[in-house]
């Protein structure tokens, strides 16, 4: 029942995303734009050239960030883990910006997002105390969050330096700092869709192992789980999911934080069902945030990353407040 509601919300989000905006398009025209495209109809052009790509980007980024959030929270056993806060998105973004501005790459730079995300994910886990599991409790929420903001701040400063050095348009800067779905038609949507899809498959494949890991490393090994393999799969999945999302939408924060928590309220606590709910829920929320940003004060547009951060900060506070002092440290 609740899952049906989530899917209905996603459908509503898709429809609103296509029809609402600075130029409202009636439903009939949307269907016609897909089935009987007429290049002379401006409504059809808006749908084909702008809104459909934007919708695709939102679906890719929504799925990617939401599932990455579920995986990161499960593998770190940390309710505050999230690709935006922990600097994984910024790592992907920095690598792409570096490729474009420092190495002079163009289209190929997008692929640098993946090593960037992987390095950032590994770095934040190690810096946050992940390697010290033996002494003093490993990667606690506070440690990870602080390592994340430090890494994030560093990478964002470096992105700013690289972009501002070229005195580029403000929009380029904002895309890489805040994240946005505008100009989605210019992003490599198809390759990133495929990448994220692979990430989704890996995410579901790692789910049983993550459920076992929730009992602690030793218990998981006792149950016959190969913990190293599970972690490696998760790292690969997070890399593909975040990298793909960042290439099409920039480093959007907090979607990956909020969706897993909402999904766990809807689904049972197993990782598989959380992933299954997060799959439609992520893009539904991202689309809602995007539509909100487009209609709240036309003709100006609020970047989806801004809306997400504004709401997400509040969610972060609520989660931090719910934790007992012992869980924080």
């Amino acid at each position, binding site marked *: 029942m609740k899952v049906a509601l989530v899917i209905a919300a996603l459908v509503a989000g898709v429809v609103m995303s296509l029809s609402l905006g600075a130029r409202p398009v009636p439903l009939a025209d949307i269907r016609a734009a897909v089935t009987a495209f007429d290049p002379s109809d401006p409504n059809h052009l808006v749908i084909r050239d702008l809104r459909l790509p934007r919708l695709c980007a939102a679906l890719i980024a929504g799925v990617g960030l939401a599932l990455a959030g579920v995986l990161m929270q499960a593998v770190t056993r940390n309710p505050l883990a999230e690709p935006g806060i922990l600097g994984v998105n910024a790592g992907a973004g920095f690598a792409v910006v570096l490729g474009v501005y420092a190495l002079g790459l163009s289209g190929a730079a997008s692929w640098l997002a993946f090593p960037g995300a992987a390095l950032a994910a590994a770095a934040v886990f190690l810096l946050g*105390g992940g390697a010290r599991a033996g002494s003093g409790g490993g990667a606690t929420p506070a440690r990870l969050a*602080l390592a994340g903001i430090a*890494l994030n*701040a560093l990478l964002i*400063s470096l992105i*700013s330096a690289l972009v501002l050095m070229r005195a580029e348009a*403000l929009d380029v800067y904002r895309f890489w700092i805040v994240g946005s779905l505008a100009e989605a038609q210019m992003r490599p949507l198809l390759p990133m869709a495929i990448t994220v899809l692979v990430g989704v498959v890996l995410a579901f494949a790692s789910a049983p192992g993550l459920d076992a890991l929730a009992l602690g490393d030793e218990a998981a090994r006792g149950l016959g789980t190969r913990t190293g393999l599970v972690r490696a799969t998760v790292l690969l999945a997070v890399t593909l999911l975040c990298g793909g999302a960042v290439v099409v939408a920039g480093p959007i924060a907090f979607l990956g934080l909020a969706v897993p928590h909402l999904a766990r309220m809807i689904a049972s606590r197993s990782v598989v069902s959380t992933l299954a709910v997060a799959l439609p829920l992520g893009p539904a929320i991202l689309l809602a945030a995007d539509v909100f940003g487009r209609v709240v004060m036309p003709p100006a547009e609020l970047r989806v990353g801004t809306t997400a951060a*504004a709401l997400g*900060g509040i969610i972060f506070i609520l989660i931090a407040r719910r934790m007992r002092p012992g869980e924080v440290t």
Partner: protein
Amino acid sequence: MIRLLALLLAAILAGLVYGEVHLPLSAIRQWDGAAELLIGVIRAPRVAVAVLAGAAFGLAGALLQSLLRNPLASPDVLGFTSGAGLGAMLVVALGGGAFSVTLGAASGGVLAALAITALSWKGGIVPLRMILVGIGAAFTLQAITQFMMTRLTEAEAVEAARWLSGSLAARHWGHAFQIGLCLALLLPLAALSLRALRLLELGDEVATGLGLHITRARAGIAALAVALVASAVAVAGPVPFVALLAGPLAARFGAPMLTGAAVVGAVVTVLADLAARGLIDGVQLPLGVMTGILGAPYLLWMLSREMERGRL
């Protein structure tokens, strides 16, 4: 302390002499028109603002860190700086002047500090919970600031974006005078708060046992720190990390807690600004980008040290 003051002096001299336009020493000695313009009109007020704003950030950081007994509890990590940034931005968007920007920064900082304290309150303050709440609040506040920016024209928005990452471009003597006045009012209060801080350092129970009104003392010191942050944000933007690293760095130099942090804050800001405008030819980076590049690795190092000591 002497070493720190010498360092500050050297940093100020470097800030005056070096820059995008190279000025030969002979020109400086003769004090010709070019020297007058470059040093007297462009660089001197900029360096003055850097010294004073840096000192204010450093002092505010040291006050909060010792108040919460946690080296991570600086106004930037706790989200106070973002609040001041938002307040200032609101006033800028409404077209306010220098004085009202300071006032806006102050109200933004105070409101953010109150909100974050209230949100982290759960029968008391646990510094780590407050830090986490501050991190979340900073995200929301920065997003609202971004939202305000969309109301500006493109040219204003570019300017605002630079300012929001913390910038000392085009500062004039008016700015220096403004922050100087604020510090003249706030420094005596900082001196007075020192004794209360020394007791708070011993822990709430001991401090109460020694006859300190801890709630009152806390509120006063926090208000002082917020006022310092707001004064600095009004002239330099929400520069990250200076407040975080000034206190602990000063301690490494063996300098007294508050004065040391102020001097280190000034040194770091002047040098970071120098690097931001002089490191890459023809490029003026915002100061905040530079303090971010310098400060974030420091935060990471501090995290790993705190973990080694088992305090985090």
